[in-house]
């Protein structure tokens, strides 16, 4: 039986339209190209001039190989994965909270990580027995554990995850409490302020192959449930009741997605400290340039976030070479400019 012409057109429309998919694929290709460019750029930018670096690529020696392949490449790859994790976490957070300005640090992760780092530094410095675990974990582990603890406390405080407003509120409370505790602890050891400042401003300086690998694994682990449950986020946009009537279990969905956000954010924060704006700008940027459903968003946001952080890392190494800016300061500038442009355009259109 031959299918009549209108049927075919309807089918295509119902399937989501070829134009939209083509646009998305083009967008993806563009960002992949940007990523490759940035990776290449990262190899030649650093404490040596560009010409020297290019020379190294062509005729490598022992020391330049170390610089290129042990320092610069893992650093940019790790930065990409960290940015991708933050972008993914931001995209999910924006979906779960149905707020385009949500970001991964909303549930107190940043303050929790800072507290973890403080406890770890204290443990290394003093002989307080109870803190030995913090010292054992090292800064990375402590930051991770702190971030996870913060989210757990937030969820416990809000007594269940059904109400997003409640979650946000308890996130703010936990963030404040942990910040206060961190400040109090730092008062006893003021010389740790500088270490904390470095942590709070973020640094991609010491990402080696082991860190990059860890970040990569966590990214893949987070990507799988995200793309699987992306439709759930789509359903959530219709409203809690409608989503429930479609057969979704809201508590489980939220718990799983928040678990992914926790894991992604904690891993990123553990390795690079608290780098702001990437988790906010990446998904937001995707939505501004393209209209997407959540499955596409949760693929596009990591790509965008990864490239953003790679670019920020590159800039931080290049602007005042051979000294280095904290990467969080660079992302703050980028994020700030982006938001200002957004506001300006909005006011202009209004």
């Amino acid at each position, binding site marked *: 039986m031959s299918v009549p012409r209108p049927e075919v057109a309807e089918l295509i429309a119902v399937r989501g339209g070829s134009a939209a998919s083509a646009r998305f694929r083009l967008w993806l290709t563009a960002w992949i190209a940007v990523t490759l460019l940035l990776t290449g750029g990262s190899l030649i930018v*650093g*404490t*040596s001039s560009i010409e020297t670096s290019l020379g190294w690529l062509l005729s490598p020696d*022992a*020391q330049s190989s*170390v*610089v290129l392949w*042990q*320092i*610069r490449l*893992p*650093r940019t790859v790790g930065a990409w994965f960290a940015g991708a994790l933050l972008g993914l976490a931001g995209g999910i957070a924006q979906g779960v909270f149905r707020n385009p300005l949500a970001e991964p640090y909303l549930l107190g992760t940043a303050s929790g990580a800072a507290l973890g780092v403080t406890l770890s530094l204290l443990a*290394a*410095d003093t002989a307080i027995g109870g803190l030995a675990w913090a010292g054992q974990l090292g800064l990375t582990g402590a930051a991770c554990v702190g971030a996870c603890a913060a989210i757990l406390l937030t969820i416990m405080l809000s007594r269940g995850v059904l109400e997003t407003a409640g979650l946000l509120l308890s996130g703010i409370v936990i963030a404040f409490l942990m910040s206060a505790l961190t400040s109090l602890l730092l*008062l006893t050891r*003021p010389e740790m302020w*500088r*270490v904390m400042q*470095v942590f709070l401003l973020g*640094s991609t*300086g*010491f*990402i*080696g*192959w082991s860190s990059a690998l860890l970040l990569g694994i966590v990214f893949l682990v987070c990507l799988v449930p995200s793309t699987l449950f992306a439709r759930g986020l789509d359903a959530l946009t219709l409203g809690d009741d409608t989503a429930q009537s479609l057969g979704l279990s809201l508590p489980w969905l939220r718990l799983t997605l928040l678990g992914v956000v926790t894991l992604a954010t904690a891993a990123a924060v553990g390795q690079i400290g608290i780098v702001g704006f990437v988790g906010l700008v990446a998904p937001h940027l995707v939505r501004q340039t393209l209209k997407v459903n959540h499955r596409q968003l949760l693929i596009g946001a990591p790509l965008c976030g990864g490239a953003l952080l790679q670019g920020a890392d590159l800039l931080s*190494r290049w602007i005042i*070479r*051979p*000294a*280095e*800016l*904290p990467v969080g300061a660079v992302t703050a500038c980028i994020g700030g400019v982006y938001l200002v442009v957004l506001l300006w355009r909005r006011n202009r259109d209004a």
Partner: protein
Amino acid sequence: MPLDLAQCLGLAVCLGTLLGLCPAACRAAPLQLRDDLGREVRLAGPPQRIISLLPSLTETVCALGACDRLVATDRFSDFPAAVAALPKAGGLDDAEVELIVGLKPDLVLLSRSQRITDRLGELGIAAFALNSARYADIARDVTLLGTILGVPDRAAALNENIQTAVQAIGTQAREHAHGRSASVYFEVDRAPYAAGPSSFIGELLTRLGTHNIVTADLGEFPKLNPEYVVRHDPDVIFIAAADAAHLADRPGWSEIRAVKERRLCSFARDVDDMIVRPGPRVPAGMQALADCLARVSP
């Protein structure tokens, strides 16, 4: 007409008295000095109740023999042992104004970067700000404090001692190195923040005949790209003890000669204090640096 003996004696007594009284008079004369914030500070006489909010200034005051005049210090001043018993008036940025005012000091010594100077001024307390950051500041601080405390000769002597000691240590270190200048990297913080040659520590290291892998144009305490250290391959690395164990974990650092051959220098907290405080103990600090260099230099 020639002066007779009685008149000569009388004159001598008068002159003697005048001369005798003069130092006391000079001592009692009001001082007006300009501090490092550009403020004019007037003192009626040498202050008898002093509060010092900077460890190096505490040590200098004590080295000038005026330790008994100190009524309080900041929480970081821990040398000499006598000051440990004094009340602590807070830290660099959180000095306790109430405590300070309650002790009714004649003078508060602090660093240029402390915010409390205006507050103290409003409350009518004399505050003297000194910028003690460089090696050259040591001599200047000592002289200034000598003038303020009314012991200029002791100050001169102290300066002399410090200079001689520093020269001696420097010469000995250079001789020991047989003219070879080791390249050094001094890590202040694990970010990594390095001590540049224009910082106080950097100056000490230069006097010991080493050369810093950090160049002067990068500033006093630049935050480096870790790659920089790998590329410049220092002979000796000065680093905190806690970080020394994990240096090889930093990407690419296992290739640095100093890391491979364990040419690392770490200091205990009290020794570290001597190195970072631009005060009278600088020779001891420098000696610690020199000893370690002699031990681990290639």
